[in-house]
């Protein structure tokens, strides 16, 4: 569906160059909800904006449905763009047009007859649950409603791809969830391929089936979301995932381990087995279970006072039972 090959983006400003993207290779399949996550300045915005050429790539190719977007001339590019919609962090709605006319805009561009516009826009208003707001201006809407108008507008031209440029970053957590479930719903209903860039791990966990982690213009890790979460390979990824469970130093005494439970082990009483088998005392410092793509991942940070040999055996025992162990403090 989308093949990004050796993509580079370099910004040249008078006497110095800023490399935003280095040799990016990505493959996004039809129907994917593909997340690209990274901290600010990692290059994720440049990456998504290269896909519809709001930014001109410096080098490389981007194939969408067998067409190399990078090679297209103005007119062909405009046609191709009708197939690649985009929603934005700041919604970018037309303040002078009603909700109805905002959604109708892509259709007016291609001179669609009024009767068809009416039918199509009403259908989209229903999809995003804003039928009662058709004649209201964007200034009268809440953030979440504005983004729903943005989504409806992006769907008007029946695109194959939807690019989301930090689409939920300006919204509160509850509204974010609503928007994400709307995107998921659209993805399932219309078979739309969605590319999301974000700095929020929650967004990736909630809806992305695949994820790429971007740092300093390079992809440091890529794969199915669940795999990346359960066994992160790079330091950057681990950092992004563990953002919320940094323990204060005063608790890092003795031997501190983080146990990661996957689907296979999350229902098992592993801790109690360890206690019985090795006759040790375990102090639980932190724990949570989260759901990634509706699959549970449990994290437990514990403190055990044992010698190194027993610790080694505990780790072996845990891993045999599908629990991964990371030693935080020896």
């Amino acid at each position, binding site marked *: 569906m989308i093949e990004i090959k050796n993509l580079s983006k370099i910004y040249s400003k008078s006497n110095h160059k800023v490399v935003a993207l280095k040799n990016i290779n990505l493959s996004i399949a039809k129907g994917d909800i593909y997340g690209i996550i990274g901290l600010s300045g990692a290059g994720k915005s440049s990456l998504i904006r290269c896909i*519809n050429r*709001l930014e001109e790539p410096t080098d490389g190719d981007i194939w969408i449905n067998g067409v190399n977007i990078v090679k297209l001339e103005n007119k062909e590019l*405009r*046609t*191709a*763009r*009708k197939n*690649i*919609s*985009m929603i*934005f962090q*700041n919604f*970018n*709605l*037309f*303040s*002078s*047009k009603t909700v109805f006319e905002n959604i109708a*805009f*892509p259709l*007016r*561009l291609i001179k669609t007859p009024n009767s068809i516009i009416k039918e199509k826009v009403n259908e989209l208003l229903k999809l995003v649950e804003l039928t009662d707001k058709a004649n209201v*201006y964007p*200034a009268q809407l809440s953030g979440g409603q504005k983004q729903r108008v943005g989504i409806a*507008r992006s769907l008007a*031209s029946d695109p194959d791809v939807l690019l989301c440029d930090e689409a939920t970053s300006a919204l509160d957590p509850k509204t974010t969830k609503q928007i994400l479930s709307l995107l998921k719903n659209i993805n399932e209903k219309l078979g739309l391929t969605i590319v999301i860039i974000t700095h929020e791990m929650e967004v990736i966990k909630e809806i992305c089936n695949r994820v790429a982690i971007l740092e300093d213009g390079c992809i440091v890790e890529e794969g199915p979301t669940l795999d990346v979460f359960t066994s992160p390979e790079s330091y950057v990824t681990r950092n992004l995932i563990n953002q919320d469970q940094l323990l204060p130093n005063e608790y890092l005494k003795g031997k501190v381990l983080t146990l990661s439970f996957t689907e296979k082990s999350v229902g098992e009483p592993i801790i109690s087995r360890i206690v019985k088998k090795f006759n040790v005392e375990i102090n639980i410092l932190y724990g949570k279970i989260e759901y990634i793509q509706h699959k549970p991942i449990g994290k437990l940070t514990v403190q055990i006072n044992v010698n190194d040999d027993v610790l080694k055996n505990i780790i072996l025992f845990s891993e045999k039972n599908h629990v991964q162990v990371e030693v935080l403090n020896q």
Partner: protein
Amino acid sequence: MSHLIELLYPSMLETLYMVFVSVFFTILLGLPLGIILVITDKNHIVPIPWLNNILSYIINITRSLPFLILMIFIIPFTRLIVGTTIGTTAAIIPLIIAATPFFARVVETSIKEVDWGVVEASISMGATPIQIILKVLIPEVLPSLVLGITITIINILGYSAMAGVVGGGGLGDLAIRYGYHRFQKDVMIATVILLVILVQLIQSTGNKIAQIINKK
């Protein structure tokens, strides 16, 4: 009183004629000029930096000339266009030439208010530059454009007071000939009152329209 009305009425018609025709052509020329000034910028939708520089330069030159000097300076050009250099119609040409660059800058400032994100959204939907201008840029800043037009009308009304220099007539000319040269204070005062009322009317109408069409 009746002789005042006899004096004021034809002068007022001359003023309205000059202002109306000048405003019409100023908008006709200044609106596209202002839009070109914005979109040919190197970071906008139709980047043509050399054209942008030349236009900006010409506008600055025209705007640095005082109206009185401009009016005399372009007399040959006026003759070329309307066939005469004196009279009300002859005064319209310098009015247009003075007001167009001013209005172009007003339009430029308004159009630049459009959030770039909104322009990008239109580009991402496959809009052509013409579609972006007509369906996005102009509608988005219409209230601000209306206020800009209001200011321009009042400006032209002010300039038109000097039209007497080329025999253009109008209220300003009347005030100078009767009120100043002939010491007829009542004509002077009546003219000033009339001009004040005109400006108030134009401004409040402009404000009202802008307020009605503003959806922000």
